[in-house]
């Protein structure tokens, strides 16, 4: 049983925003329950709740599609355990596509 919610801010950049109604910033309130909110769960949640189509352009298996950078509070997710990182209240998560740039 949980009370309250986990408030985080998700930002999309580098073109990824076109998959999310062209909205770059999404402020989310995730329900606190018995499960832990890690990035793996967040990505699946985004795929199921924020994407009507073209999920394969954002998600691959349990993670993001190769070519999409993930930063949490200005830190590379590779330094935070990637999908195992557990979200904290107030976290700023950035998903940035680096595909067809230049």
């Amino acid at each position: 049983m949980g009370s309250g919610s986990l408030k985080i801010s998700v930002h999309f950049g580098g073109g990824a925003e076109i998959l999310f109604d062209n909205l770059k910033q999404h402020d989310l309130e995730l329900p606190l329950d018995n499960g832990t909110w890690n990035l793996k769960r967040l990505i699946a949640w985004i795929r199921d709740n924020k994407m009507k189509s073209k999920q394969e352009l954002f998600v691959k298996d349990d993670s993001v599609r190769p070519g999409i950078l993930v930063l949490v509070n200005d830190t590379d997710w590779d330094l935070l355990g990637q999908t195992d990182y557990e979200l904290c209240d107030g976290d700023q998560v950035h998903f940035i596509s680096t595909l067809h740039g230049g």
Partner: protein
Amino acid sequence: MCSTGGDDGETLLNPKPPLPEKGTLCRKCKTSKAQVILQIKDAYCKECLIALCNHKFRAILGKSRIFGNEQKSVLVAFSGSASSLALLKLLSDAVAAGPSHRRIMACPKIIYIDEGALLGMSAEERLTKCKEILEVTAGFGFPVYAVPLNVQDSSPVDITNYEIHGNTDDKLKSLFESVSDTTSKLDLLNRLRCNVLSSCAQQLKTSLVMLADNSTSVAVKILSGVSLGKGASISLETGFSDSRHSDVTFLRPLRDFTSKEATIFSIFSGCPKSVFVPSLLTMSKMDSSIQRLTETFIVNLQNEFPSTVSTVYRTGEKFCSTPSNQPCAFCLGPLDTVHKPCSALEATDFSRELSTGKKPESSCGSCDCKNKLRSTLVQTLCYSCRLIVCSVDNPELLPSTVLENAREAQSFSKMKSQIEEFLISEGE
């Protein structure tokens, strides 16, 4: 494998090593907590990453000796992407640096090519994009120009005065609509972009153009170039400098930066957020074109084997171009279509003859076309440009500069064959 490294083959086959522990310190200053990790094991904090990128950028330009003691004008091709922003920021900081910090004596001008006509964007949408581009580039303090992608030469104008003229877009749209496949469309688009940039550089009295190609896009270009028959010009299309266009040299100072490095730099150094400009590749299916397929292949492989991009890139650096007497009328690269015995071209033509069962009727050799303009045009083109031109239904829609170059080349070789017997050949 012919490399100086040693165990490069093994590195490619080893999968990703385990991620570093949380709280790892920056490998350079060893005091701050690392915020980004590059190339598997190099962890840096924000300040050290910025310093590293600045140092690398200035070293590449300094080593090339392109910028001396006098200010040189340089046109920066800006597409709105994070790499373009990184290039602008790096150049801007290098120009403003003190003499003891390897200042680069450059006078940058920014140019944005409006390709909205190709994607059916409305005039309003295209002007909105221009506004977004201006918002993002204004802070750097350099003049910003805009030019529409066009078949005829257009003049670059100050981006605040940019206007859309519907009739000039029609020729461009007809040209692209007459191209049968996306692969050729993308190749054609790249050629047109280069020609537009070269023409704008000349009009703005600049002899240098900087492109924001990073190592990932260079690796994709190398591999897809091989698939598209561009062997003769890969080194020019992906090297640090490209002087095919007379009077204008194209530079790729970011080619040593991975896409992650360039993107993270643009974020950490406080650049404005990138502007997303739709292109032919946007939302396209993975198998819609060779370029897209190659990009997916390389990026996916890079995820599992982090030395993929650097291996392709380093192998591509070993390519070189053999100059020819006449440049290709389209890409101005070397002509690789002389039928030497045992050449790859001879083998390709032979296979085509065997599999289709007919000898090529026109001298084109690439298709069974009867179009007279096309068959004379292809004589003046390199192999990969022939493939593009053969996929265009109506070659009269091609840029006038290409058709002019072809006419000149034709009359030159006609004249040469007329006076051949009077020329002293190299053997004598």
